[in-house]
């Protein structure tokens, strides 16, 4: 068990012993190694605001005193801090605002006003003050830390990430930055990075349930299931988990196939007052994941009759479909739209159902119904484009994607889809240029880099070294940004197959490890093993491929032929 996991365990036991004392991050910070590590800024967590406020009251004085900038109005600041310790938040705010009236550029006061606004659950307002402080002094670490945390709380993860990346280079802020950045990485699927960062956060993680949940999630994803299990067990023992924490915990436990623990976490959440919403749907999802389909379906039907909400009806539709009750499934999907006609998911799910059962025209009609309701829906336009593209109606798909791009300049899927459509329309130079600019607009989006690399590779006219190098570069970037995407490893491995065999093999092995069903990677890897004298390994892979192909062929046999075995001479 790593150091961090040990710390987690200790924190878990302490938390269980003090289950009535929800100290959140501060509890963890008390046990950190040095005083400077207690400058943890605002504790995070969408559900941890109350505990975050309490934590801030313990932490802020240290943050302020550690500021390098001398305090001009030390007396006023002390009064303000006194108000805060006494819980007189409004008075504290007024005090620090008063300081700013006298000196609008007072960094410490700007930081305090922002922090107090966060305590009052006004993170959007707080950002204004943090940014003002940073405009005056970009090196003012406390403001940057608090800004990053506020952005994190608001879900502005890209902006938070940018600030946290800067803070990684500041020794006194590194551990906190690692903590929050680790959580962001975990939520964006960059699990190897997430694990590394959260471990770099040291003991800070132990005081942050949300960080621990992220840690468990990412440990599971990188294959460290045992460690993930230890963290989950420690979390289960904590008494300071909020409703949203418990819901997240249930999700991570379910992903780790620890279904009993997942259900137990949901039960604890249900016992809270107020309980988080949507627990019924989550319970159904966990039952289904655990293979208890009948129970899941029965529960879903019961709840849908009692309190039909869109998510529940969507889940019910899925379960009915799996059980072969297609009519009931359609009915549930239609009801989902009726109860939430403004919600895009309803239209998307029903249209996907139609595509699955080979009625793309109806799928498009449903999407158009949604667009009538929500003409500026990016998601509906993208879905429409994809449905049209699947039917090879590329001109119409191009229009849909172009409209979507016009709506959301900050989202990459429509742009990438547009480029793919342009390729199908044989407007390759425009497609490549679209993707190239996409990589500049979304430098951290692994998928854009992957699609660009793929398109460059496929559009080569024969052996073009320049384009090969460009393709290779962007496959590598895609992998750096998401080290769990098997297709990127496969494509890079294939590109390198003849010039850097050893590295090609490593990439293909990674692809196969991540997705053992990726036959293309397995085949390419098998060929390279055979080429490089690893006959046994190559032959084994080829045998597996052959067996898979045979199984698929047998499964596709029309029912009337399945019982017929070839006679000796047939």
């Amino acid at each position, binding site marked *: 068990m790593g150091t961090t996991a040990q710390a987690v365990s200790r924190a878990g036991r302490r938390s269980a012993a003090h289950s009535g004392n929800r100290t959140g991050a501060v509890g963890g910070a008390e046990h950190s190694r040095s005083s400077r590590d207690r400058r943890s800024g605002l504790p995070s967590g969408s559900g941890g605001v109350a505990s975050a406020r309490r934590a801030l009251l313990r932490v802020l004085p240290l943050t302020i005193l550690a500021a390098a900038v001398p305090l001009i109005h030390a007396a006023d600041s002390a009064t303000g801090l006194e108000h805060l310790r006494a819980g007189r938040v409004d008075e504290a705010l007024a005090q620090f605002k008063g300081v700013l009236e006298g000196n609008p550029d007072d960094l410490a006061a700007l930081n305090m006003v922002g922090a107090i606004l966060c305590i009052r659950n006004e993170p959007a307002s707080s950002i204004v003050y943090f940014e003002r402080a940073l405009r005056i002094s970009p090196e003012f670490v406390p403001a940057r830390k608090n800004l990053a945390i506020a952005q994190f709380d608001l879900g502005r993860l890209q902006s938070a990430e940018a600030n946290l990346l800067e803070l990684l280079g500041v020794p006194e802020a590194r551990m906190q930055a690692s903590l929050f950045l680790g959580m962001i990485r975990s939520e964006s699927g960059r699990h190897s990075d997430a694990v590394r960062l959260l471990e770099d956060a040291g003991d800070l993680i132990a005081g942050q349930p949300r960080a621990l949940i992220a840690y468990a999630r990412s440990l599971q994803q990188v294959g460290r299931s045992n460690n993930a299990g230890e963290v989950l067990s420690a979390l289960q023992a904590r008494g300071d988990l909020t409703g949203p924490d418990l819901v997240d915990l249930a999700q991570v436990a379910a992903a780790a196939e620890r279904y009993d623990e997942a259900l137990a976490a949901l039960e604890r959440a249900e016992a809270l007052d107020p309980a988080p919403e949507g627990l019924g749907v989550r319970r159904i999802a966990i039952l289904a994941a655990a293979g208890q389909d009948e129970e899941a379906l029965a529960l879903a039907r019961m709840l849908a009759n009692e309190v039909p909400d869109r998510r529940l009806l969507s889940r019910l539709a899925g379960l009915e479909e799996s059980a072969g009750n297609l009519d009931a499934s359609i009915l549930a999907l239609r009801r989902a739209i009726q109860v939430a006609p403004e919600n895009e998911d309803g239209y998307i799910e029903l249209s*996907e159902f139609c595509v699955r059962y*080979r009625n793309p025209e109806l799928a498009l009609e449903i999407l158009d119904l949604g667009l009538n309701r929500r003409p500026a829906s990016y*998601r509906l336009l*993208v*879905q429409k484009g*994809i449905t049209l*593209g*699947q039917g*090879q109606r590329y001109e119409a798909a191009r229009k849909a994607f172009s409209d979507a791009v016009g709506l959301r300049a900050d*989202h990459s*899927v429509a742009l*990438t*889809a547009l480029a*793919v*459509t342009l*390729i*199908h329309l*044989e407007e*390759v130079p425009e497609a490549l240029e679209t993707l190239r600019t996409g990589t500049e607009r979304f430098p951290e989006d692994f*998928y854009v880099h992957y*699609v660009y690399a*793929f398109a460059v590779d*496929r*559009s*080569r*006219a*024969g*052996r073009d070294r320049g384009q090969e190098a460009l393709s290779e570069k962007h496959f590598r970037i895609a992998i750096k940004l998401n080290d769990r995407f098997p*297709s990127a490893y496969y494509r890079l491995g*294939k590109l390198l197959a003849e010039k850097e065999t050893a590295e090609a093999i490593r990439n293909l092995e990674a692809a196969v490890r991540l997705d053992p069903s990726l*036959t*293309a*990677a*397995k*085949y*390419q890897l*098998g*060929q390279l093993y*055979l*080429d490089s004298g690893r006959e046994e390994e*190559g*032959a084994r892979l*080829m*045998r597996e*491929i*052959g067996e898979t*192909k*045979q199984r698929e*062929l047998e499964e*596709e*046999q*029309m029912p*009337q*032929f399945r019982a*017929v075995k*070839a*006679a*000796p*001479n*047939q």
Partner: protein
Amino acid sequence: MHSSRRELLALLAPALASGQGVATRNVRAQRRAETSGRPFAANFVDVAARAGLRHPTIYGPADHKDYIVETVGCGCAFLDYDNDGWMDLLVLSGSRVAGAPRGTSSRLYRNNRNGTFTDVTEEAGLLRELWASAVTVGDYDNDGYDDLFISAFGQNVLYRNNGDGTFEDVTEAAGLVDPDTRWGAGCAFVDYDRDGHLDLFVSNYCRFDFDNVPGPGMGTCNWKGVPVHCGPRGLPFSRHSLYRNNGDGTFREVSDEAGIAKARPGYGMTVAAADFDNDGWPDIYVACDSTPSLLFRNRHDGTFEEVGLLRGVALNEDGQEQAGMGVGVADFSLSGDLDIFKTHFADDTNILYVNDGSGRFRDRTLESGLAVEVRYVCWGAGIVDLDNDGLPDIFYATGNIYPEIEAKLPEYPFKTPNVVFRNLGGGRLEQLLNEAGPAMAAAHSSRGCAFGDFDNDGDVDILVVNLNEPPSLLRNDIDGGGNWLKVKLVGTVSNRSAIGARVTCAYGTRSQAQEVMSQSSYYSCNDPRLHFGLGDETSATLRVRWPRGGTQVLDDVRANQIVTIREPTEPDRS
């Protein structure tokens, strides 16, 4: 948006077609490089009508297909059945479920030596209505006259050449009658045990029963949303067969003991028997439709080991099956080894497997430039030097299998043109869109094709089977092309047809290997005289490796002639 990203990936990445049971990757064509601008000396003109090739190949109805058996069509052959030194033509034919027109039959055309042919089918004893698939030509009884084996849906037929212009059906006498209805597909005479007698390999496509197969549009039987006939995937597969020649005019099935029956099941099509690993023993490659293709490696002891996956010729570079139909075998890369070109379905590339010399192959499709053309369903094919510049080119015939599609999806016409890629050297090919003559653009629903020199003018002509139409006879009128050499081999110790003999021709700085084969392309058999374009070279050195192991070297052979080489009775250099 994760599910959208998955769907987006599916739009971009190649995938097996959904719906109908034919494998195709739904890929886009590769971007074309700039044209070389080099002139192409070969010019093809369709002279079939004036040559007297008038009978259509009947194969199911012309405007719709209810069953897969009506679509796959058949092959053709160049053969010199009367040993007069001029190539005659055999064009196979099928039938119709509702009854074929009177006189429907495969046709044998005797070469009149003046650019015309006479239909001698009836006098030759070949008039017969049959769902014929493929033909292989070889002298199985070593009497000096080439015999015919025709595979079919129903019963295969072995015709022994009587030497007097007639053939006799000796299927039963030879022990080749099958007690059950089978669907014979590709077939090849091959002396797999090197005993001097031609044995016989027959691939089988699938087990088909009109009463048991669903009709068009049932279940998943649709293509891009249009109801079409079912198959092949979903239909029951069949085994392939190897028959050993007993040396007395009879055959014995040895599929089990030879290891052929152990192979993974698939939908077998064209058979190409040749020495792919250069060990002096013939191997057998079977192009399979929508299932991994097979390569049976000869173990020299009467048995075979199936090594298609290990040798890199079963699947494409993405590890996927393709709709393997036709096979061209020749030394495309001028490395002294035999490479394989295989044809596939629309929205997919054909594939070029280049031999590394040890019998392992790499997919060089993208690097070669072949992937610029993905529009057609492709069938008969050959790697042949069409302009005599010393570099083997690629030709293939095309034609869709779903006549019903055209009305709904006009971008997939039923009748489509022939395709030529010229060899630029260095492993690169360039598609010729207009440069090879008017006959290339003519649209038919073609299937098999065979390559040979019917007018003995030193180039390669092409015979093409067209469904429900007369064949095309593409006469090559080379203008200013290079020198050439044709090599006719006669076995003495080895089988009389010299099937399996390897000739390596060295001309200038180049060297090219070819092998006498009894089937390639799609279900077809080429002129057994090996054709070498020599470019500007005026002579060549020929090295012959006979099927039973003897070798011969002929130095300084003058260009522009047909050379007949008889196998020495004692292995020597002469």
